[in-house]
């Protein structure tokens, strides 16, 4: 965190100490899990875990951009739900996988843009606008599905979620591509650097000529696109869509961003951190399953991780101030 703050305008990333810390965490958890279960340290299991992490990362990637820019998007889970339901029914209706892709991405973008519009025009805080959007999108999804589950898709569409390319699951490739895209956007483009400035000090950013309102629209739209993309992968992997799938992802996504070292106060953080955060969270869930902890405890554990990560954030911030 310190490093990204002091090297705001360096295009050359310095030695990422926070990344190293998180890599060590991952190695320690993996070693512990291999001791508990001999079946853990296999290539198949590794790929499987990474495939699970990829979905969490995709949802969290858009959120990372928004939080770095000083905002918050609580609607990502519900957005994912609505995108999933709409794209599933578009595929069923037309028989074309591409129709589903278009529906999911269009719906995600539209919800993201609406979030940005609400914040810009109504001047309401981001958490309020996106929290309202959460329930609106969720409500529409439940009404639209009317208690039905849409399932059974063509292999061509399922390839996105359960297919392999060069021996590696497709979602992992998507995760790497999105991660690389975000990395280039945040570190190598002017607009990306402006996002950091905006998140660190909006007034200063505005005075130095950054069009805050337009950048905000872009960030929330990107977050919506990320939700739409994750919806496609999720539906393709589950081979089903129902209105309860997205909402449980909100808390883990926020946890992944926070564990990844992105500060909730805006202006600092990295997409690599979120990637590692998503992997750490997936490993913790795997550990809970190995230890036979019931799935009812998952929200408790995720909530505790969010609170602990924030405590770490608070103490780190206190350290840099002195």
């Amino acid at each position, binding site marked *: 965190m310190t490093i990204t703050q002091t090297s705001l305008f360096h295009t050359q990333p310095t030695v990422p100490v926070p990344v190293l810390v998180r890599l060590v965490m991952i190695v320690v958890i993996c070693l512990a899990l291999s001791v508990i279960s001999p079946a853990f340290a296999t290539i198949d299991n590794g790929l499987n875990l990474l495939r699970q992490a990829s979905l969490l990362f995709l949802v969290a990637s858009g959120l990372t951009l928004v939080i770095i820019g000083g905002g*918050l998007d*609580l609607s990502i889970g519900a957005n994912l739900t609505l995108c999933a339901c709409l794209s599933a029914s578009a595929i069923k209706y037309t028989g074309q996988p591409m129709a589903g892709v278009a529906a999911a991405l269009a719906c995600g973008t539209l919800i993201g843009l609406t979030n940005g519009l*609400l914040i810009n025009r*109504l*001047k*309401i*805080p981001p*958490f*309020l606008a996106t*929290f*309202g*959007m*959460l*329930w*609106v999108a*969720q*409500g*529409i*999804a*439940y*009404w639209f599905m*009317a208690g039905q589950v849409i399932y059974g898709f063509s292999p061509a569409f399922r390839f996105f979620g359960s297919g392999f390319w060069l021996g590696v699951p497709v979602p992992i490739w998507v995760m790497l591509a999105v991660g690389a895209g975000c990395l280039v956007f945040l570190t190598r483009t002017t607009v990306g650097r402006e996002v950091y400035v905006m998140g660190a000090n909006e007034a200063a950013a505005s005075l130095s000529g950054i069009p805050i309102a337009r950048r905000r629209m872009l960030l929330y739209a990107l977050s919506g696109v990320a939700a739409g993309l994750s919806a496609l992968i999720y539906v393709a992997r589950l081979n089903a869509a129902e209105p309860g799938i997205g909402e449980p992802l*909100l*808390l883990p996504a*926020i946890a992944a961003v*926070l564990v990844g070292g992105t500060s*909730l*106060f805006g202006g600092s953080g990295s997409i690599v951190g979120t990637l590692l955060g998503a992997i750490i969270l997936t490993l913790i869930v795997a550990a809970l399953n190995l230890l036979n902890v*019931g799935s*009812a*405890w*998952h*929200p*408790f*554990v*995720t*909530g*505790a991780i*969010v*609170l602990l990560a*924030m*405590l770490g*954030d*608070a103490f780190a911030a206190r350290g840099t101030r002195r």
Partner: protein
Amino acid sequence: MSDQTLPRIPAAASRYLSRIPGVAFILLAMVVAFQVGNPRFLSTVNLANVGLQASLLMMLALPMTLVILTSGLDLSVGALIGLAAVIIGSLLLAGWSTFTALAAAAGSGIVVGLLNGFMISYLRLPAFVVTLGTMGLCEGLALALTNGEPIGGFTPAVEAFYRSAVFGVPTPVLGAAAFYGILSLVLYRTRFGIYIVAIGGNKDAVHLAGIRADLVHLAVYVVCSVSVAFSAVLLLGRANSAHPTVAIGMEFEAIAAVVLGGTSFEKGQGGLFGTVLGVLAITVLRNGLNLLSVDPSLQVVCVGLLLIAALLIDRNRKRVVTRIAE
């Protein structure tokens, strides 16, 4: 800039008008529209029903007003009321006394309130994410305590309390009214209340004035969580069962009611009476849509649209008032 021109309005009437939250007009319009759409809307039976439905939301939205006045937010109330209901329900089932069950629920409220308050007030972490974290804690605990199954079949006393009435007015409505009275006294007639509003304005200034601002700030979250935990009784009485996650989403209606009532997240503006109007607006909307048999999931969407409409009215009216003043 508009704040400075506002006191210059000559007519006292227009000043008074500008204080009424936009939701009052929407509420009036909705009552008229629903009465026209369905003549049974203003019947005694339906009004008692609206009152009963509003009382639970009132118990959540009134303390939420205090929290929002401090520029904070509590997203954990929906999950906490579910947890408290599960705690009360399982203790009653296990044969414990009503008093013990209520005390245990209050205890859960105190713990959650202290956790929220400590992290938000003393560590100055953003309220919306802290309370999202505690929401996860409460939801997980409630699920783990019940294995995700609803529990029911306890003493009929709880439901009897919910259905009882004094002089024809349902007891929960009287309870909510009494709660409104108490909170109004606290907010408008005590130093604690003044500090709450002042913390929303500028916490550092309150601290520098020699007041233990951190402690007051923490107390607000404890008050909110404890009263939410107690309102679980109403939730239990309504369904005569405790479901671990049934109340999740109620935090949205509570926050929407507060914002509808004109309480702003900045500068400690707003008040309890506006929240009462907001609660009534949401309940009337839901009740009216029920009478028109609109799908419950679409009703949530309508609450969201109502919120946007009220915010738009409040924003544009300020502009109109400013223009008159100029």
